């Protein structure tokens, strides 16, 4: 078989079962694709020896029969996941050289199922960013270009390396994490599928924390079926994460029937924003028609507090970040600044954090510090948490009225050029998450499905939002949308 790295998880699984290929051959094909893709800067720590060892073990297991679906599947792992003995630095200089002595629960689940790790993937520093431009490793680059224009485009963020690697077929799939849209926005920018499950589905243990009440891991894959397969393996109840949910994980793939007859799809009127490109509006309309043609009932709904999601997010996420990132103090791990004569512990903290954190991370930590400080806690932090409760209630009301899933655009634009937002104020960059951030605030599952291309030839995604804990139903609706949209475009190889 040629071009093994271009296979989906499902196709590779079936080929492995039939003996048409081996995990070693799949892994070798991916390693060679990675070697030739330095220009994308997607993989930032390669683990070829570990990958080949894991592949050989997977082949033995497949030979013995009864191997799980993910056995022998070569993956890229976002740098936010702690992987034992392998650099895990959240794309930050403050964790330079950090090699965890433990494995995150999500990667452990994947390895227990026989998955292969090719290496660690680029991302925004501490997952704070929407363009992968805050990374200590430099920008990851989108394999897609605007036709013949060779301007380097962002793969989105924060899971930019994951998105770039999957879109460019450097791996069969990748892990991502999503705090405000960090799986779904890069998936949309690169023409791949990405799902953020319900908060509590995937253990956060061993995932470097950004905003603990919002962070969730999820798969970034070539299609919806692969998302279903990989998500099932990533999910588990974990006593090490106190917010992990102790409920059974269904066989998501078995729920992909493509039958959505009688389902009610809500179209939130507040997601129709001024200044959104006509192409995105047209795609949204097309998506509605596709779901209606498939037998769903499409209804207009209202989520009245949508407008306040981003401002609430930019209080809550920095507040939690300022607390979580207090641990980077130069004492237990990571970078410690060189001290001058007479410097005490306070100077050590201040210099270490100034040197180790990039600009965006410093800014968010300080904004978080401010909104939590005495005198402002009620005015900002508590008010944002109240607004968050109202945002969740909007969704609860819609679901209570019989809505099964909500259809929205995934992003307000297609991928933009790296550096094009440099002079914009930070709020302009934050607007990238305008359609995705509500889902994190409400703890809901959300999936981005590639659904078309714009006039520049760049992919666009649609987002479906589901009821809590009903990822299977959501994936099935996404599957129906995927089939109707028939998106099969791939970036032309220039790297």
């Amino acid at each position, binding site marked *: 078989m040629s071009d093994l790295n271009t296979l989906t998880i499902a196709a590779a699984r079936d080929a492995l079962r039939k003996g048409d290929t081996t995990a070693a051959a799949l892994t070798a094909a991916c390693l060679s694709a990675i070697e030739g893709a330095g220009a994308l800067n997607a993989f930032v720590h390669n683990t070829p020896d570990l990958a080949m060892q894991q592949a050989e073990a997977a082949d033995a297991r497949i030979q013995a029969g009864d191997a799980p679906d993910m056995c022998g599947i070569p993956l890229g792992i976002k740098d936010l996941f702690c992987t034992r003995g392998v650099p895990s630095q959240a794309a930050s200089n403050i964790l330079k050289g950090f090699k965890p002595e433990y494995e995150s629960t999500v990667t452990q689940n994947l390895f227990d199922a026989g998955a292969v790790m090719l290496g660690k993937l680029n991302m925004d520093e501490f997952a704070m960013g929407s363009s992968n431009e805050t990374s200590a490793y430099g920008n990851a680059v989108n394999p897609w270009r605007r036709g013949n224009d060779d301007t380097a485009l962002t793969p989105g963020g924060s899971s930019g390396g994951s998105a770039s690697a999957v879109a460019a077929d450097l791996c069969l799939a990748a892990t991502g994490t999503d705090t405000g849209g960090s799986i779904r926005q890069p998936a949309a920018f690169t023409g791949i599928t990405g799902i953020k499950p319900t908060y509590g589905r995937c253990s956060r243990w061993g995932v470097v924390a950004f905003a603990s009440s919002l962070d969730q891991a999820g798969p970034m894959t070539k299609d919806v079926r692969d998302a279903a397969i990989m998500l099932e393996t990533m999910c588990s109840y974990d006593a090490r994460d106190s917010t992990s949910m102790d409920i059974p994980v269904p066989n998501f793939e078995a729920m992909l029937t493509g039958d959505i007859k009688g389902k009610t799809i809500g179209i939130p009127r507040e997601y129709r924003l001024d200044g959104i490109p006509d192409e995105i509006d047209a795609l949204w309309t097309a998506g509605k028609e596709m779901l209606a043609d498939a037998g769903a009932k499409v209804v207009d709904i209202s989520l009245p507090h949508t407008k306040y999601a981003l401002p609430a997010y930019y209080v809550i996420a920095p507040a939690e970040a300022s607390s979580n990132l207090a641990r980077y103090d130069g004492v237990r791990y*990571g970078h410690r600044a060189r001290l001058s004569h007479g410097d005490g512990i306070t100077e050590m903290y201040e210099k270490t954090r100034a040197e180790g954190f990039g600009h965006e991370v410093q800014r968010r930590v300080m904004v978080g510090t401010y909104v939590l400080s005495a005198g402002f806690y009620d005015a900002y932090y508590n008010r944002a948490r109240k607004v968050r409760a109202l945002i969740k209630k909007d969704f609860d009301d819609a679901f209570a009225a019989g809505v099964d899933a909500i259809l929205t655009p995934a992003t307000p634009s297609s991928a933009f050029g790296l550096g094009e937002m440099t002079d914009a104020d930070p709020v302009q960059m934050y607007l990238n998450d305008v359609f995705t951030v509500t889902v994190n605030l409400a703890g809901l599952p959300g999936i981005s499905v590639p659904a078309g291309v714009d006039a520049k030839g760049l992919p666009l995604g649609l987002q479906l939002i589901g009821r809590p804990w009903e990822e299977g139903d959501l994936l099935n609706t996404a599957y129906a949308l995927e089939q109707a949209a028939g998106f099969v475009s791939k970036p032309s190889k220039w790297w």
Partner: protein
Amino acid sequence: MSIDTATAARVAKLARIKVEDDQLPALAEEFNTILGFIEQLNEVDVEGVEPMTSVTPQRLKRREDVVTEGDQQARILSNAPDAREGFFAVPKVVE
């Protein structure tokens, strides 16, 4: 509400991040942009709304208060910038 350079300096100090004096005006301006954006929250009527603590109503599980994964001093110290004699080493804390 407008943040001046003195407030920016105070926030940087609280966050334990060294910011050079010449950087403070730009930092204060960024704070003002972000806080201006956040001000929109004041339009929302939150009377009688409880602040959210958890998206899923759940009671945290209890566990026995016992050591489960102890006795791993070497692994815990393995990433320390400065570890000596089984301890993390830091500059003098008390004069």
